[in-house]
């Protein structure tokens, strides 16, 4: 397995068979705050409104009970895409098809034949301390495919190629949002456009120009 880190130091796992790289975890608030510290249209007022529906918790001490507070939620698709574009060329939200292929691949081999604790250690050694600590802490709470939080995490924005619209995929745990969704069969839509839902988050994929990223990725094993 190979991985590399985005500009805020969070890992993307390389999936050559899918010809894309995907973030190991949904986007966290601490990641998103790097974007909020830039000059853009997202200031204190916007962030207050987002935090009002899913408050923040610190990456240093989140627990099994409040781990969803670690992630940015309540954002709208256009806001999520603005963030993805800020990350750089090739970053975007996944399509529904991409999301589901990733999901199925994770179910088959969640570690991609690799012990994830090594990834956490490597992240910390490489100076990506926040991401490394988050992965370590999550590994204390979650096993196997659960760590990716595609199941038992959030509902994540994805683009439906057939309609061009954005829909939600994923199945949060019941304690966070009671549901019976099957991500392979179901898509989730807010009742109204512009409605901020506390269980809607995001995960970013990168469609690499292989020549550009091959050199910067790290082979863990």
């Amino acid at each position, binding site marked *: 397995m190979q991985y590399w880190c985005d500009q805020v130091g969070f890992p993307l796992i390389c999936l050559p068979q899918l010809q894309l790289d995907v973030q190991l975890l949904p986007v966290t608030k*601490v990641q998103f705050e790097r974007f909020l510290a830039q000059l853009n249209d997202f200031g204190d*007022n916007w962030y207050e409104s987002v935090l009002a529906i899913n408050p923040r918790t610190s990456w240093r001490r989140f627990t099994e009970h409040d781990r969803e507070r670690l992630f940015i939620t309540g954002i709208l698709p256009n806001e999520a895409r603005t963030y993805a574009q800020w990350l750089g060329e090739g970053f975007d939200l996944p399509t529904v098809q991409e999301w589901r292929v990733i999901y199925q691949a994770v179910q088959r081999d969640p570690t991609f034949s690799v012990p994830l604790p090594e990834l956490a250690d490597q992240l910390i050694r490489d100076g990506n301390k926040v991401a490394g600590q988050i992965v370590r802490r999550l590994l204390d709470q979650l096993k196997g495919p659960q760590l990716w939080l595609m199941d038992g995490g959030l509902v994540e924005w994805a683009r439906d190629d057939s309609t061009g619209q954005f829909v939600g995929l994923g199945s949060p745990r019941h304690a966070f949002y009671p549901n019976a969704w099957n991500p392979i069969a179901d898509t989730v839509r807010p009742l109204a456009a512009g409605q901020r839902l506390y269980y809607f988050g995001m995960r970013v994929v990168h469609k690499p120009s292989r020549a550009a990223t091959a050199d910067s990725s790290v082979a863990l094993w």
Partner: protein
Amino acid sequence: MTLAESVGKLSLPEAPKAVLILDASESAERQQEAILQLARGVLDLLPAQVDPVLYFLGNPSPYQPAQLSTNAGIWFLENRKRASLVTPIFEQIAEPERVRIAIVGAGKVFDLEDWENTLHLQRTLLVRLGDSLQPRPVAKELASPAPTELVHWLHDPVQHVALSGPGFMPLGWSNDSYQLVRCGAAFALVGENLSQWPVAIRFLADPPQDVRAQLQHASGTTDTLPLQPANSNDLPEPPIGRLDAREQEAFDCAIHQQPFRCPSCGGECAWDLLRCRARGGFGHLVYPSIERARLNGFVRMWRGDGDVCFRAAGRGVLLIGPDQVIVKTHGARPLIYQYSPSAKQWQETSEYFTQYLRVGPDAYAILV
């Protein structure tokens, strides 16, 4: 443990760097004028030698404090749309133990909790001019303080240093601005409002490693520092002088308690007279060589290689035995103290110092 002689030195840490972080975000927009006024007041009051660093929340790039008054409008506007985040700035501060930080603003600083229990936040004072800066209490916070209160936080110089410890008795020190002080049954070496604080010191203590320097800051807060190891270069031996032939004759008479002819004025002096007033005024030392050497305090004199030599032996303390000293504090006559190991204290004896006190084979001490 027993009393032991040791040398050490005290170096005060560099004064912390003052970091002022202003909140220009949307949540503090209504307080912009108050934030600016307070910042200006603080920057005006900070002494010239303090070189503060100015930041705006969310922005890791420092600004020039001297240009705040002229550029405030532009700077606040260009940082308005950044979220109230402190991480981008704290990440620039690699040595948090060397800074004092103040964040002046209104409304939540969203990521403060990520720094809970870190040195960064322990060195940070939150200043609210509107709503609280912290979603939950994780740092010290003041509401609408006066600029002077904030200056005391950002620049809190040391004003008083006292070196002391069990059985502590300083025998010699390199910085003459420090004074020997008796505090009850203990002794301390004290400096107040000095321009130069470093000092090397030779001392007795029981045990030497327990000697500490207590630092008192302008705000009233205190710190304690251990002494660092010192070597002979830090506290060089004073130079040796020699008496001339007439002075040596006088010395030989004096140690046998016989009157002598003053080497300076030629008049007859009592054996224990050190300052001859035959020429009026405050008088002059009967040993011009010692006067020229500008010695002050105890002087040790001894015969070596046929000549009588002398050397400064301590401004206020003279060691006369393994556990016995003579102490001369300001305005008091010299007293002899004996160390009590059980009490770990120096106890005053009934003996007094007299000139030409014998302190070794053919060695004597005078107090000038």
